[in-house]
């Protein structure tokens, strides 16, 4: 059984479209190099794993699980991340584009500013590489902020609405060790239209970009 291979989804905007929040150089390296490397290594691990399984070598298939989880997570996270951003000049980056979601955010945290503060604190509290996500919980439908280490992905039940990459490669060339400024500026380029659609839609819909790029 041959494994399906994944490919790099094109960015829905130009590399410099998120300036000045995120520089063109960062976006270009992040997309063409970092994201591509996760995909390359994911495809490799899936192939080795499929071959091992077809030969009945469970031990060799199991040895690939860590690489599949890490690189697969990297591919999922970055794919969702790109779609979750929009140029600050676009109406999609305005809170008005997410009436239902912002209403739920206010119901949950009391005010949008309070949510921003709690989310920002969670992002800055990550020890090492990782991501912060706003998710819709599977059973309750409630909103929750989660942080995940390295390339762990929101894949068990919950629906990811938008995520912020806190790996140093996501901001270092522009913000150096000043990651608080990166967190402050990323709010200007969140794609609220995408977040609203993910909030209203099914869990599978949130991940459709992955299927579209195989």
């Amino acid at each position: 059984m041959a494994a399906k291979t994944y490919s790099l989804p094109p960015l829905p905007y130009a590399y410099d479209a998120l300036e000045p929040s995120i520089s063109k150089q960062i976006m270009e390296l992040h997309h063409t190099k970092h994201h591509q490397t996760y995909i390359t290594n994911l495809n490799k691990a899936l192939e080795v794993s499929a071959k091992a399984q077809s030969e009945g070598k469970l031990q060799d298939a199991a040895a690939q699980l860590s690489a599949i989880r890490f690189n697969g997570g990297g591919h999922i996270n970055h794919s969702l991340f790109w779609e979750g951003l929009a140029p600050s000049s676009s109406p999609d980056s305005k809170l008005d584009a997410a009436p239902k979601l912002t209403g739920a955010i206010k119901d949950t945290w009391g005010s949008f500013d309070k949510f921003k503060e709690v989310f920002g604190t969670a992002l800055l509290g990550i020890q090492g590489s990782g991501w912060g996500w706003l998710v819709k919980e599977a059973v309750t439908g409630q909103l929750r902020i989660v942080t995940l280490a390295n390339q762990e992905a929101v894949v068990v039940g919950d629906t990811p609405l938008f995520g912020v990459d806190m790996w140093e490669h996501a901001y270092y060339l522009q913000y150096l060790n000043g990651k608080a400024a990166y967190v402050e500026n990323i709010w200007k380029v969140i794609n609220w239209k995408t977040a609203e659609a993910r909030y209203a839609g099914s869990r599978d819909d949130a991940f459709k970009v992955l299927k579209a790029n195989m």
Partner: protein
Amino acid sequence: MATALFRTAPAVRAALRASSMKPGVAALASTSFVRGKATLPDLSYDYGALEPYISGKIMELHHKGHHQTYVNGLNSALETIEEAKAKGDEIQAAATAPLLNFHGGGHKNHTLFWENLAPNNKGGGGEPEGALKSAIEKDFGSFQNLQKQINTALAGIQGSGWAWLVKDKAAGTLQVITKANQDPVIGNQIPLLGIDAWEHAYYLQYQNRKAEYFNAIWNVINWGTVAKRLEKA
């Protein structure tokens, strides 16, 4: 007096500021501790001294920015724990443990890292000698094998972390291990050589080409320091 103090290293200044916030504490500045507070150690070489292998800008940010943040975080975690202890609040103390591990580890790891690097004119680069060389050849076959093993370990780190050459006191052997984030080397393992694989350690110069950084850093390893650590291990 004040003028003279402010000409001292930033670390000492920060320590003085910190201690001056506590009335009655003398501004007794040593380079490593002020009344039990951790402070940023000075580098024994200039920020630009490891070029072209590690740029001066990386070294400066890494030392003055990142390492200083771990020092501050460590002092703040220790303070929180002291306060919790005074109040008998064990939960608050326990809740601070991850911060203590992260910032305490970050302070220790970077301190070891600066010391196991050196410019070429101060003992950096080359190959291990003497007892260290023999131990490496005994446990890894050759110095080249050790380099390969460390580079593979570094490349395999998923996220931020470190690779270390350690002496395992129980087994009596040298081993290559990796640690996630800022987890310190503890227990039976004595750290001999550490290489920082956090992106901030190389990104401004090497961007996503981290393998080039892992190859380049061998040119500035201070084998004299590593040999001394093995002697004491």
